[in-house]
């Protein structure tokens, strides 16, 4: 009993509902004992935020919440306050910071944005985890205190963007990629080895430097489609904020608040099994609102790719891992959001995903997504098309003019490879490479919407580098 109470004492989570996100943060931290409980005078503080791409709210962490935490840390006497994160694949922090003018903004709040991917400026320490080398910026490792502020949005793989996922981006996006590691006697797809490896890496990276204060911002939650702003996305105001000192406990309360069955959340179950944090409600001291009375009704991401209805697109799915599911989910939502006009021009296309997908219904515009789909459809019939050989068009026209009956001649046929197929390789494929390949395949005039999107991304992503890497 004594033991239990001491755990509860240690693992406190505040569930706060307030009128503004700023007030919710301040009230939550105050209920947990005030900022001085987490940050001491002279501490070097690193605030880990979501910094995915130069998109608008809620793609990245709410600035109001970050500025409130920075001002609390300043009041607590922190020596230096750093803010940072590694962004999405191919996005440079400098480009992102310039687009959102983050450096001046944080400077104004007396904090500093770390350009973590600038290795010349910020040295990296190599840490070996799960037989993989992770480069972690020394600037983060040197900090006395870590505060993790996470914007909660729906997510296709983990139901919602948890704080544990936010912690994963203290390493670069390249390091976050999961390489396909086939093990003898184990079915990679059936066991969803991709997700298992991903979870294992997330937890390993999380253990490098556990955050001291964890904030899950649910004041506004992106529902329907996420975690980026897509056509089906909707922003729901819940007015809630979950704050605590244990990321696993905070995530566990967040999931419960969102009415999600924790036992089906592999990431949290693994964290519990590895004793990384507290998951069970009985072991968490909950402060503030009553969780049972405040369950939220959120519309989560489509759990099946077929449920993401994209105009004129036929989805044929085989067996697939979470990696391909995640990327295909984003590609489909991207098509739905950015290709309104394009999809009308294209008229029809098929998207083949996963191992041994079903045969496409039409022979034109077949997009084969991912290595599994490409390799398992090499011998499929849709790869070849039959054409009539040596058609004498002049003779045919003459006959039509003379209204002569068709002579029954043996028509010669030829089998050639179907050129209307676009392979999008990768395990899982890279979305930006897919975008550039799709534009090349259809031509700019056929996909004006996607072409505009490509031009917009080009302002902060170096596509030439991506193309060079591809070659």
């Amino acid at each position, binding site marked *: 009993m004594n033991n239990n109470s001491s755990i509860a004492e240690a693992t406190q989570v505040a569930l706060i509902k307030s009128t503004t996100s*700023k007030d919710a943060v301040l009230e939550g931290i105050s209920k947990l004992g005030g900022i001085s409980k987490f940050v001491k005078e002279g501490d070097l503080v690193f605030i880990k935020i979501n910094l995915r791409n*130069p*998109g*608008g*709210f*809620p*793609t990245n962490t709410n*600035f*109001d919440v970050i*500025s409130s935490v920075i001002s609390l840390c300043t009041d607590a006497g922190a020596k230096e306050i750093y803010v940072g994160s590694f962004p999405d694949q191919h996005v440079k922090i400098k480009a992102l910071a*310039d*687009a*959102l*003018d983050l450096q*001046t*903004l944080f400077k*104004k709040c007396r904090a500093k944005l770390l350009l973590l991917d600038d290795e010349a400026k910020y040295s990296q320490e190599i840490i070996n985890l799960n037989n993989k080398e992770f480069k972690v910026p020394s600037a983060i490792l040197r900090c006395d205190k870590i505060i993790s502020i996470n914007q909660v949005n729906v997510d296709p793989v983990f139901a919602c963007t948890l704080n544990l996922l936010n912690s994963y981006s203290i390493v670069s996006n390249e390091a976050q990629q999961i390489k396909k590691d086939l093990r003898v006697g184990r079915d990679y797809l059936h066991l969803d080895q991709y997700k298992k490896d991903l979870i294992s890496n997330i937890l390993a990276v999380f253990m490098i430097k556990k955050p001291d204060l964890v904030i899950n911002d649910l004041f*506004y939650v*992106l529902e329907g489609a996420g975690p*980026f*702003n897509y*056509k089906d*996305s*909707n*922003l729901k*105001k819940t007015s809630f904020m979950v704050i605590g000192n244990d990321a696993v406990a905070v995530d566990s309360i967040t999931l419960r608040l969102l009415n999600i069955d924790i036992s089906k959340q592999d990431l949290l179950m693994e964290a519990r099994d590895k004793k990384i944090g507290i998951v069970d409600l009985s072991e968490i001291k909950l402060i503030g609102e009553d969780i049972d009375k405040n369950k939220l009704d959120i519309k989560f991401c489509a759990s099946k790719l077929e449920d993401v209805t994209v105009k004129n697109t036929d989805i044929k799915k085989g067996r697939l891992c979470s990696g391909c599911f995640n990327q295909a989910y984003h590609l489909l939502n991207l098509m739905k*959001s*950015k290709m*309104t*006009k394009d999809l*009308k*021009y294209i008229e029809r296309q098929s998207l083949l995903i996963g191992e041994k997908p079903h045969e496409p219904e039409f022979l034109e515009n077949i997009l084969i997504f991912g290595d599994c789909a490409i390799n398992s459809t090499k011998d499929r019939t849709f790869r070849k098309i039959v054409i009539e050989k040596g058609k004498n068009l002049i003779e045919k026209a003459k006959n039509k003019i003379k209204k002569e009956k068709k002579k029954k001649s043996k028509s010669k046929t030829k089998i050639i490879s179907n050129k209307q197929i676009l392979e999008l390789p990768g395990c899982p494929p890279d979305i930006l490479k897919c975008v550039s390949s799709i534009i090349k395949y259809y031509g*700019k*005039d056929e996909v*004006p*919407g996607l*072409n*505009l999107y490509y*031009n*917009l*991304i*080009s*302002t*902060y992503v170096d596509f030439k580098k991506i193309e060079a890497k591809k070659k």
Partner: protein
Amino acid sequence: MFDNNFKSNWKKILNYNNKINLVESPEEIREQVRIPLTPIHIEGYLLYYLFELLYPKFVNDQQNILDIILSDYDIENKVLGIYLYKTKKAGIHESIEELPKDLVIIKEKDITDMNQLFNMVQSHISDKKSVKISSIRIFTRRGIDLINTYCDNLEKYSIYEFLYRFLDLIQKLINENLIYLFPEPNVYRFLKDFFKILNNLKLSKLFRIIESFISSFATVLVFYSRKLNIITEINKRDSKLNESKISINLRTTKDLDLEVKQYLSNNSLLLVQKKLNSESVVNLSQDHLISFFLDLFDLEIPIKKENFKLILQKFIYGIRSFEIHWNLLPRPRIYNTLIRFLVRLLGININFKKLSHWAIPDMFFSLIDTYFGLNSNILLIIVNKNRIFTKTSLLLEIENSSLIKIIPIDNPEIIVKKKVDSLDSIRNSFLEKFGINPIIVKVDKNLIQMIISVLIFKIYKLKPLSLLKVLKMIKKEEYFQIHPILPPYQLIRKMGTISLLKLCLSILIDKHEF
């Protein structure tokens, strides 16, 4: 209770409406009346027609109306006057009957439940006058005083002054609950909610800002319908004083001796143009316009993204149906097939008849959602050669892609003292004062004037080069700037003007000609 000037004009209208039922061809009765609450004089038959057309659609489509005037102070019985309009046709006020004010007793608490109040009044009137009323209009004494003050010397006002004061009157009457209508028409509810979004911003101020963007023009709008074509002559001349000179004239085709029914042919439009000596003549369908506005007023405010997309689609569809649902004289050069063909040879596809009405709203919102965010604060600063132009900058508060508030920023410490070219310092001041991190959009008045002139008032002169000129201006920081430099703005700055035009047109115009 009403001002004598108002009353005499109103009586004149009632008499006219009464006479109309007695004659076979009502348009033959020539009598000038004033549109209530405006200084504009028109033919009595035209006003009759406007009431017959608009009142049932926008206010109430049933017969018999009751006006009640209430005291602002009495609690036991607030009624100061009751007036019954027995209408044979919905909206056509032809007789007025003053009823004893103790016929209905209305207490302070009754006003909170309009439904119950209406039922009570309806049953009283039905019992005592054997008339079933379909709507009630309640005016408070303060509302009447306000209207009377407004009507004072109304005829001496210029159109500019009238519009300015009229907008203020409407905003005040609705905002301060000085009038009530039951059943509540959609237009009333729409305005009431819209004024809530405007916060402290006066509609007249907004009008002044918008009006200043419009340079001089002289145009004639012909609203066609099967029954009556309405010719509206609008002229605007800029003056060096604060006010512009605006004139509005409403007539029918009969007034111009034009014997045309329904849709006007190009020859008839040419006649109208010559007779009225105007720069351009626009021919619009009354039915289509009414249908558009009915749809607009039907929207709930704040307007949800999906609803806004639909109304935008309808609007763009309207623009694209040139020579189908509307017409313009002189015919815009840009519609000339040879010009379009030559321009297309250069890879530029300009065909406004193929505007992608079905795709533009989607693409627009996708862009805004992605880069401005679903929640955002946009500070709109209008400048004139880098000097603050209007003394009012607007902060647009957006939540879940819906505009929820427009806040005028008059704080001189934030904007006026700061150099307008230093948007960064304005943002910092904003952060300090209000704790808000806005996206600042700075637009020069000349750019807005240019866009409005090129794409609306002088569209008949539109050339591909004018579009390039507009784009070139947008690319220049002195005319247009967004802070922080978000990807769409970066793209505008980075891309060449012609490439940018081609990129925009590929989104705006359908690829296929047929």
